[in-house]
C-alpha cells in the first residue's frame, strides 16, 4: 500500500536543491531566509536519518522499523509569564501530574497528537525519529497567541478578555502539525504555500481532536480553537473548516475573514500574504472530502493529506500543486476509479481549484 514511497531516493525526498535555488534567486529577502532555514533543517534531518536507518529504508515519511517500540517523550516547561524559552521544566515524560492544570492539559493533549500520528500514520513523533516534544506554558504576560518556533511549542495564557487560553486540543494539534510540516520538507510560510502550511496544521489539529474523541466526520465540530475566545466575545472558535468565515463576528475581533472558495481568495501583504485567511479554501476542501467519504476522517482523507505532505517535495507548492498531489495520492492508495479519487477531485472543484 505504500507503493508511492518506492520512488523515493534519500537525497531527493525532503527538499530538492533546485527548488531552494529558485527561491534564493527570485524570492524576496525574508522568503529567501525561510527557504534557507528549511533547507538547513532538511539537511540536518537527512543526516540524522542516515545515521538512524539502513540505506534501503529511506522514506519520505520515516516509517517505523519493525520491532521498535516507540513512545512519546514530552517535556512541559513553565515560562512563568516571561519570554525566555523554554523556562523551567515542570513535568517530564512519565512523571505524575503537577498542581498546575495547564501543565497537565498540555502534557495530555500533546500525547493525543502523538497518538494520532503514531497510531494512524506510523510516524514516530514530530520528526519521525522520536524527537522529544518540548512545550512551554504561561509564555509572556497575557499573551494572545501560541506558536511553533522551529524547535518547540509555546502557549500564552491569553488576556482573559479576548482569549481565555490557548491550551485546547485542536490548537495544540495545530502547533505540533507545523513541526510535522517542517520535518516533512516544509512549505514556505508565505502566500499559497504558507496557506497550505496553515491548512495542514488546521486539518491535523482538528483530526487529533476527532481521533481522541473517536468522532466521525459527521459528528465532529470542524472548529479550530473551539472555546478559547473570551466570555464576552461573539464567536465560537478561531476558524471553522465546515463554514470558513463564520467562526466569529465581534466588535473587537472583527469578522472571521476566511474564504471557502477561490472566488474570494484574498490578496494581501499582511499575515505573510494571508496565510491564516486563504487557508480556509484548502480547509474546506478537506472538510468536503471527509464528509463525502463518511466515517472517520483520519482514515481516508487524513491519509491522503498526510501522504501528500510526505511526497510533495515542493516548499513553494500552490493550491493547484497540492490538489494535484492529493488526487495522485488517492489514486495510488485507493485506485484510479475509486470513490476516494473521484471525490477528492470533486471537493477541489467545489472550492474553485480546478484540476
Amino acid at each position, binding site marked *: 500500500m505504500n507503493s508511492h514511497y518506492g520512488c523515493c531516493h534519500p537525497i531527493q525526498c525532503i527538499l530538492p536543491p533546485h527548488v531552494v535555488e529558485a527561491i534564493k534567486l527570485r524570492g524576496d529577502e*525574508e522568503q529567501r*531566509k*525561510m527557504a*534557507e*532555514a*528549511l533547507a538547513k*533543517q532538511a539537511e540536518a534531518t537527512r543526516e540524522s536519518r542516515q545515521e538512524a536507518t539502513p540505506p534501503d529504508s529511506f522514506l519520505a515519511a520515516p516509517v517505523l522499523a519493525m520491532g521498535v517500540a516507540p513512545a512519546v517523550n514530552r517535556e512541559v516547561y513553565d515560562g512563568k509569564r516571561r*519570554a525566555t524559552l523554554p523556562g523551567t521544566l515542570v513535568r517530564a515524560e512519565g512523571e505524575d501530574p503537577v498542581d498546575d492544570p495547564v501543565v497537565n492539559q498540555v502534557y495530555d493533549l500533546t500525547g493525543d497528537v502523538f497518538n494520532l500520528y503514531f497510531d494512524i500514520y506510523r510516524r514516530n513523533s514530530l520528526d519521525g525519529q522520536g524527537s522529544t516534544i518540548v512545550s512551554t506554558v504561561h509564555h*509572556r*504576560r*497575557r*499573551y*494572545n*497567541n*501560541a*506558536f*511553533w*518556533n*522551529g*524547535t518547540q511549542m509555546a502557549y500564552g495564557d491569553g*488576556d482573559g*478578555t*479576548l482569549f481565555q487560553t490557548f491550551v485546547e486540543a485542536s490548537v495544540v494539534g495545530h*502547533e505540533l502539525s*507545523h513541526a510535522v510540516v*517542517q520535518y516533512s520538507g516544509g512549505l514556505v*510560510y508565505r502566500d499559497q504555500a504558507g496557506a497550505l*502550511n*496553515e491548512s495542514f*496544521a488546521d486539518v491535523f489539529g482538528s483530526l487529533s481532536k476527532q481521533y481522541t474523541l473517536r468522532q466521525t466526520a459527521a459528528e465532529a465540530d470542524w472548529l479550530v*480553537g473551539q472555546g478559547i475566545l473570551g466570555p*464576552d466575545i461573539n464567536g465560537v472558535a*478561531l*476558524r471553522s473548516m465546515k463554514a470558513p468565515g463564520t467562526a466569529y463576528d465581534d*466588535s*473587537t*475581533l*472583527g469578522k472571521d*475573514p*476566511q474564504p471557502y472558495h477561490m472566488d474570494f481568495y484574498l490578496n494581501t501583504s*499582511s*499575515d505573510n500574504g494571508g496565510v*491564516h*485567511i486563504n487557508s480556509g479554501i484548502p480547509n474546506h476542501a478537506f472538510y468536503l472530502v471527509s464528509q463525502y467519504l463518511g466515517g472517520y476522517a483520519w482514515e481516508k482523507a487524513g491519509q491522503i493529506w498526510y501522504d501528500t505532505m510526505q511526497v510533495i517535495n515542493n516548499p513553494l507548492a500552490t493550491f493547484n500543486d497540492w490538489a494535484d498531489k492529493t488526487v495522485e495520492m488517492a489514486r495510488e492508495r485507493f485506485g484510479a476509479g475509486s470513490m476516494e479519487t473521484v471525490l477528492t477531485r470533486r471537493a477541489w472543484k467545489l472550492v474553485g481549484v480546478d484540476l
Partner: protein
Amino acid sequence: MKLFLRIFTGQGITLQGEINLSDLPNDLARQVQATLTPENLTAAAAAQPNPLMVDASEYELVIHPDDPNQTSQRYELVDADDNIDVLEVLDDIMHEIVRRKKGQS
C-alpha cells in the same frame, strides 16, 4: 501624545485601536515613556524574526505627537528574541485599549 496600535495576533486575528498617553494608567504611561523611545523602537523594529517560526505576531505602532508641527512616527515590529521589552509594553497598551472598548460596550 496619541498611540495607534495594531497587533496581528499570530492566529489570524487583528486587533487595533488608539489611546492617549494621558488615558493610560500611571504605571503603564511611565513604562511607555521609558521604553518606547525612538532609539528603542528603531532597534526593536530592526530585530530579525526567526525564519522557522510560524504563527508569529506582528505589531504596528504609530505615535502622533501633541505638537502638530512634529511628524508622526510609524514602526513595524515582529516577534523576535531581542525586542521583547518593547513588545510587552505594546501588549499592555493593547490590553488597556481592549479593556476600555469592552468596558464601554
